Every structure is written in C-alpha cells, then in structure tokens.
C-alpha cells in the first residue's frame, strides 16, 4: 500500500508541474510535450486504480492520436517552435482568481463529502466486464459514439479542407 501511495505522490507531483507548464509555457511545443507528461501521468494513475484497459486506451488515444493532432495543429497554424512571448492574453489575473476560487471550492466540497475514505482496489483485469457492459448495457451509446466519430470525421474534413 505504501508503494502505491508513494507512486501516487510522485506521479501526481510530476503531473501537476507538467499541467502548470502546459498552461504557462511560453513555447507551444513545450506545452504540448508537457501535456504528454500529464496524459501519461493520468494513465499511470489509472494503473494504480487497477484500470489497465482504460490506461492503455488513454495512452493510445491521447498520446498516440490527440497529441499528434495537436502537433499537427501547431504546425499547420505555423506557430513558432521557439520562444513566443505573447501566448497569454490580458486576462491572466482574473483567470487565476476564477480558477483558484474554483479550486478552493472543489477542495472544500470534496473534503466535506469524502473525508479520508479509502479506495479498496479490487483484483485487476476487469476488462471482460467492461466489454460485456459496453456491448449490452451501453450498446446504444456505443453505437451512437460510432456515428459520432463518423460525423466528426466527415465534418472536420469538410471544414479543414481547402476549396
């Protein structure tokens, strides 16, 4: 248990630093790479929570696809790879106030609600359960999600293509 706790602490620390880097970095690419770290950290946390399948999907979809998309986006919009001073707008202070207040609020709520309740991680390998549930109980959202992806595909192409 202790190992898990230490692992959580270390990963969480890295994730937080990386996350801050994502939103403050003056370099677009560095921000994207920091995002990769956060996403990977999330995947690691999934493993800690015995959700390996989700962790794998996280790595494949996010790091494998989404971040690549971002990098493409960065290139296509010709952002300078190097230092860029004006990535932030003039709302930094209000933005900080809002997000910090939100943070305080959430922490207070969560403390109030869950206190020090523990997670008892069940035996790993519930992938079969997930598969069964998706194809029975969550059949409809699954099918719909497939159409959604198709629609997003078609639409994104139409929008993004040059005519």
């Amino acid at each position: 248990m202790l190992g898990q706790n230490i692992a959580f602490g270390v990963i969480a620390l890295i994730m937080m630093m990386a996350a801050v880097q994502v939103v403050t970095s003056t370099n677009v690419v560095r921000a994207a790479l920091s995002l990769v770290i956060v996403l990977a950290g999330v995947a690691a946390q999934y493993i800690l929570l015995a959700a390996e399948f989700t962790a794998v999907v996280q790595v494949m979809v996010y790091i494998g696809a989404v971040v690549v998309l971002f990098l493409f986006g960065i290139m296509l919009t010709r952002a300078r790879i190097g230092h860029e001073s004006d990535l932030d707008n003039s709302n930094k202070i209000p933005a900080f106030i809002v997000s910090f207040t939100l943070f305080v609020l959430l922490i207070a709520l969560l403390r109030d609600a869950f206190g020090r309740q523990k997670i008892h991680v069940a035996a790993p390998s519930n992938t079969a359960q997930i598969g069964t549930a998706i194809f029975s109980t969550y059949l409809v959202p699954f099918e719909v999600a497939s159409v959604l992806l198709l629609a997003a595909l078609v639409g994104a192409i139409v929008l993004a293509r040059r005519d």
Partner: protein
Amino acid sequence: MVLNWFLFLAAVLFCTGVYGVLARKNGVLVLMSVELILNAVNLNLVAFGAFNQTVTGQIFALFVIAIAAAEVGVGLAIVLLIYRNRQSVDLTGIDALKG
C-alpha cells in the same frame, strides 16, 4: 489510497485547465487546456469507479476519451478554418460578433 488524493489531483488538473482556457490566447493551447479538464474528469470517473467497485466509471471514462478525441478533431478543424481566413489563431482578436 485515499479517494480524495485522486479527486484533489483531478481538481488541480481541472482548475489548471480552466486557467489555461481563460488565459491562453493561442487557439491550440486553449484546446490543450480543454484536454486537461477532460482528463481531470476521467481521473475522477476512474477513481470513483474503483471506489464504488464498479466498472461503470471506466466505461464512462472510455466514452469520454473517445468523444474527446472527436472533439479535439473538430476543434482543430475549426481553429484551422479560422487560421485560414485570418492568418492567426489569436482568440482575443475574434470579436466581430458582439453586442
């Protein structure tokens, strides 16, 4: 493990994402911040799933992951569209519609 550790971590990610969305002016960076928020949600879901001893949390997270990918795709398409017409992805300059 204490549930709230995960939840607090998620809250940090969430609020960082919110800050990013509000404070960044590059469209792509804003989208990245959105991803932070969505990952916070996912972390929440998986943690709660483990807490409640059910896979529903994971399933929910999987749907979110899938759809978030589609969303990002669409978002980037729109950002590209804007870039094409304006030669810039600076969101602060986009205020032709107002009032």
